[in-house]
């Protein structure tokens, strides 16, 4: 154990770890600014306190992960996959409905979001599967099998309904397939087939999801209804200017013109209160994490580690890009939270678990 600890502290990627810690503090400050006026539970620190609790749990998970060799994944990947399926089925039948979608499973006093767990389960499962079947992926039929596995997840979250998360699964799959080295023409075939089947998919979209996509194309159709979030968010970000209005000084955020400003639209608060410099700083921190993530993937000991790291990078990249793009109105409002900043327990823990996986792959590039 002592030996392990020594190796651990020797090999750990401090750049990544410190960046994550800075990001967590940055998130807490912005979260406090955006929620201090809402007095849930009669306490301006209510959300911040809870978020700190999630962070501490997340770091506990992260630390625990560091002590497990990632090769255990080979043993437990199928188990993780089936657990995720069971939980996703449970949420459909007994989940709690918030904002018209069943996404939460109550566990004691807390609510747990199985679709978040499923993201990590998917990364683990795909890493193991692609690692074991890399050569066979040259056959188009074999190439399609991971789509079937992922498709089951997508189908289940689609029933909640949750469009954003199903897109995350798809992004993880596509990026991992790309990294493992499948033929580009296979990916292109799937891409264009999907594109041409959009009109058919349109039929299966819920009315509100169709509206979101229409409103993304033109939010001014309904400026005070469905397009409200995006317009208010754009106003908030834009009005921040170069230096922002200062912490706690955002008109839009302090007066709660921004709906979901502590969850999906927290980036607008950063934009308004901390300005272009604040958002640039945030993007810089994210860039460092992704850079370290890709570096870890490149320098991993084996393909399995490389794939695990790539999956984590895919997860983070998609969330960051889609969330910020949505806040500026350049991407549709899909309801994806922003890593390390958005308020939410399951999401915060899963972010830190991903960092744990990255650090783990990093540590194990040398034999212990």
């Amino acid at each position, binding site marked *: 154990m002592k030996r392990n600890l020594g190796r651990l502290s020797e090999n750990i990627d401090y750049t990544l770890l410190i960046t994550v810690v800075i990001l967590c503090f940055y998130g807490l400050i912005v979260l406090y600014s955006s929620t201090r006026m809402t007095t849930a539970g009669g306490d301006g620190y209510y959300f911040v306190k809870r978020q700190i609790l999630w962070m501490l749990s997340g770091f506990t998970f992260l630390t625990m992960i560091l002590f497990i060799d990632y090769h255990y994944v080979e043993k437990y990947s199928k188990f993780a996959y089936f657990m995720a399926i069971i939980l996703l089925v449970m949420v459909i039948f007994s989940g709690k409905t918030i904002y018209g979608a069943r996404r939460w499973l109550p566990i004691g006093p807390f609510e747990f979001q199985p679709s978040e767990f499923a993201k990590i389960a998917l990364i683990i499962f795909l890493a193991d599967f692609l690692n074991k079947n890399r050569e066979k992926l040259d056959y188009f039929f074999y190439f399609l099998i991971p789509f079937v596995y992922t498709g089951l997840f997508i189908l289940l979250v689609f029933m909640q309904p949750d469009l954003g998360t199903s897109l995350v699964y798809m992004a993880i799959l596509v990026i991992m397939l790309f990294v493992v*080295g499948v033929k580009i023409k296979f990916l292109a075939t799937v891409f264009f087939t999907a594109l041409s089947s959009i009109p058919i998919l349109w039929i299966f979209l819920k009315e509100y999801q169709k509206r979101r996509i229409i409103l993304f194309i033109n939010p001014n159709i309904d400026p005070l209804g469905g397009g409200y979030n995006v317009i208010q968010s754009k106003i908030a970000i834009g*009005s921040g200017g170069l230096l922002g209005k200062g912490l706690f000084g955002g008109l839009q955020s302090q007066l709660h013109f921004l709906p979901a400003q502590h969850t999906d639209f927290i980036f607008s608060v950063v934009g308004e209160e901390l300005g272009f410099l604040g958002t640039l700083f945030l993007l810089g921190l994210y860039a460092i994490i992704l850079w370290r993530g890709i570096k870890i993937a490149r320098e991993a000991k084996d393909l399995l580690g490389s794939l695990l790291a790539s999956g984590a990078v895919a997860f983070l990249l998609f969330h960051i890009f889609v969330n910020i793009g949505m806040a500026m109105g350049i991407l549709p409002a899909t309801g994806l939270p922003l890593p390390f900043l958005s308020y939410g327990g399951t999401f915060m823990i899963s972010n830190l678990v991903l960092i744990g996986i990255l650090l783990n792959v990093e540590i194990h590039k040398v034999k212990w």
Partner: protein
Amino acid sequence: MRESSSVPEEVKFRLNYLWIFVIICFFILVMSLWYFQLIKGEELAQKALENCIRSLVENAPRGKIYDRNKELLVTNRPAVIVSVIPGEIEDIEKLSNKLGGILGIDPGQIQKKIKEYYLNPFKTVKIFDDCRINKIIEIEERQDELKGVVLEIQPRRKYLYHDLAAHSLGYVGEINKEELIEMNAQDFQGGDIIGKTGLEKYYDQILRGEKGGKEVEVDALGREIATLLYRKSIPGKDIILTIDKNLQQFGESLLNDKKGSIIVSNSHTGEILALVNKPSFNPNLFVGTILPEDWERLSTDSNYPLSNRSIQGLYSPGSTFKVVTAIAALEEGITDEKRKIYCSGKFKIVDQVFKCWKEGGHGSLDIYGGISHSCNIYFYTIGKDLGIEKLNKYMQKFGFGEKVGIDLPTESLGTIPSSEWKQREFHEIWYPGDTINLSIGQGFLSITPFQLHNVISAVATEGIIYKYHLVKEIVSPDGKLDKEIGAEIYREIDVSPNTFKIVKEGLRETILKGTGWRANIKELEVSGKTGTAQNPQGETHAWFIGYVPLGESLICITVFVENGGDGSEAAAPIARAMLEKLFNIQR
């Protein structure tokens, strides 16, 4: 120590591409931020400012209305409006069901309203107007389950005596599109309460006061955070009427179940003591939003309860018009105190035969007998001698075809016939028979009861008509007298005193020994004239016009009973009852 990585070269290669992809993604984000925050920043900052500053209107309390004895007639009361904030609703269906259950309205209607009047998530939508207290309590008790439901208090007009003097008082309501265009749009906005009819409309500016307002900083739920600008509203001024509530009430009881008007004025000042119009309506129904069924009932009622008959109804004056014919004939030298005309009961002109109302005739009559017995033959004769031109001149002198100038909106003008008028309207020449009909107040002439009231006032004052008014004083909210509306000459009628003297004697005789005997009161010196107007719609209209001088005041009265029958039988007794009430004579 370090083992060489077993990651395939192809994978490393692909990871380089992934890194490039990440850079592209971040480049897009940075460029977008650059565009939104640095290029469009100013513009969006302005929008953010507008977002949270709201102008709120503070409505001024509307002035109260009192009768001449300072008895309160119209006041304001708080009304509770049930509204919802769409953005706070969690489940529209559940909420509609619960709220519908409490309010006793169809939940589907609530959902429809929310969708129809939805402006933005934070703008309230009115669901139920003027909620009853027991329902308010239930809503407050169940506030937890009714998230998004809010109760708002608004001042509401209250007409204490319901349909009493409803046509004079009028009613208030929300300004509509046409009115917004008509009035200065800068001073008004949708949802403002303005006077729609009657005194509420005529004195709207005085009663309304001045809206105040403030600019406040609000949060997204519309909650006020800070006040940036504040201007206090100025309450409306109170008005004190010339109407005597007790006399008004008594007059309304006299015309109960009847259609018609009673006008009682002091013709030395122009003050209206009572202005009865029946049937009436309850102006409280119009306050807020009138229910469709109420509006349907009132607007389609064939008895026209919404019509202010005294200034809007147009009728033939019948024999009361003989007063005008008599004055014209005396002034034009057609007749005098001495000229006697024989009434055989019939009057022939060309090949037409006109009858007197008394079969067998009145025999020989001078002007006094002509007036007091209301002999048609006497007036046919002098009317024929006068001709339409001269009669028309006197009708104009007395103000027929014009507004009487009372302080109420929407007066009807009526028609004064002339040969040109007939040519224009009917493309026919004026026949001598038309003049005969006109001389006894039948035929083409149509007037409002108030225009006829002008005739009796002019006779009583011998030529001076004061501006009629229903408002005596305007009082500031602090109780100080702001303006007194006194006697103001509106019209002077150029007729010789001798003519008035003769006509007045005739009118006095009418009461003492003529058709107006039912209006005689031994304690008072009543003069007057009855009228029974034929009309093609059915039963004759009953008229009585009269006056009583008493010290400083000169009380004039006009009674009109639509389809009431005979003027002597139906109108004169009502005039007597009103005068007895006014002069406090017990029977």
